[in-house]
């Protein structure tokens, strides 16, 4: 099984040179640590920054410069700043190439739930609904199962939906899967040491297994 950092490391392999990328809170934020130095990419923060740099040193901290997770950040070379309407304009307008975010559940047709648990305090969807409704390329980073061992890859989401038919790829602690346009999770890779049988048991939605499933390479 992969650690959170290994999930991030595997997702970083999906990043291509020249992409503008929005990283969600949690595991997605870690992806930035694993993007190879030879790739030129720009990270977008929906609170109004293109070109997120590394976290600041103590003496670089600027309270007027935070990411969407409200963490202090720096600006990369060549970055730009803008207001919230412009920020979501670039998101909805399809100018951001890749969105990586966490999820509570994903369904076999690519629906995602990640904003609300009935009966629990509702904190809000933030920018998640705008991001999933707009991006052409959405990768989900999450654990394959909930803490209580329930599969998070389902025939249909049981929690309130954030967006419909939008997820393209999922990287979990057990596997890399793609959403089939016809419905179903296509198993592409296994985490080191995890068997296809184990992934089958942990996947409640339709799992599509074609041929030999390779182990992930980092």
């Amino acid at each position: 099984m992969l650690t959170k950092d290994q999930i991030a490391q595997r997702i970083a392999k999906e990043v291509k040179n020249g992409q503008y990328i929005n990283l969600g809170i949690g595991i997605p934020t870690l992806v930035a640590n694993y993007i190879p130095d030879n790739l030129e990419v720009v990270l977008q923060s929906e609170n109004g920054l293109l070109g997120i740099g590394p976290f600041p040193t103590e003496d670089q901290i600027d309270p007027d410069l935070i990411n969407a997770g409200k963490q202090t950040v720096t600006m990369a070379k060549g970055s730009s700043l803008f207001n919230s309407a412009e920020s979501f304009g670039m998101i909805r307008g399809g100018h951001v190439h890749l969105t990586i975010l966490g999820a509570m559940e994903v369904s076999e047709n690519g629906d995602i739930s990640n904003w609300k648990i009935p009966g629990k305090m509702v904190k809000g969807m933030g920018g998640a609904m705008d991001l999933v409704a707009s991006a052409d390329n959405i990768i989900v980073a999450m654990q394959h199962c909930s803490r209580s061992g329930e599969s998070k890859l389902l025939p249909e989401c049981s929690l309130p939906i954030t967006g419909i038919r939008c997820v393209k790829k999922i990287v979990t602690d057990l596997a890399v899967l793609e959403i089939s346009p016809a419905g179903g999770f296509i198993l592409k890779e296994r985490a080191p040491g995890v068997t296809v049988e184990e992934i089958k048991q942990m996947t409640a939605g339709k799992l599509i297994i074609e041929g030999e499933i390779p182990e992930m390479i980092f």
Partner: protein
Amino acid sequence: MINKTVKNAREAVADIPSNCMLMMGGFGLTGIPENCISALLEKDITGLTIVSNNAGVDDFGIGLLLKKRMVKKMISSYVGENAEFERQLLSGELEVDLIPQGTLAERVRAGGAGIPAFFTPAGVGTEVAEGKESREFDGKMYLLESWLKADFSIVKAWKGDTAGNLIFKGTARNFNPIMAAAGKICIAEVEELVEAGELDPNQIHTPGIYVQRIFQGVNYEKRIEQRTVSK
């Protein structure tokens, strides 16, 4: 040039009544109008509807207005990190309207720009779509969303001049410029107020036409929610 200067936060918010609709700039605690929030706390008003991306934290920002029970309703996209907010919401003392962040921003922008409604893909197929008109464009579904306007919008800028022109710094810009345009009366507090003519017109983010009152703020705390440093 029309002089928009008022003396301080107290004078700027003096005529804000109970039961009105306010917009407040800021994302998290970055770029919030600290001085005006303090001045509002001194007033004896209630029943406010506040449009703001977040609701502050328990002891800072809009959280202070909530604690004093001045707020009837919040219109926001994300309201975590606030225990008093949660208590009031669960007890029914506070209403909250949660809106996707990009839809919130565009509704505010539309309000300031005279566009009564627009179609957006955010929220299609979710509970946000309930009761809303939807329409297909080029094979994809979109929801009809309407503009948001306020009686007062309260914004915070880095620099401003007596004509109301504003320049923001870093990600403290966020909702501030669009809210400036969407309030009938926009109050701007700035870290540095200069005479008209001293700011480079090429660098202005918010033209003075949107701003009715401006003052030099004092004692900015600029609290950090998630102090994160490189190892």
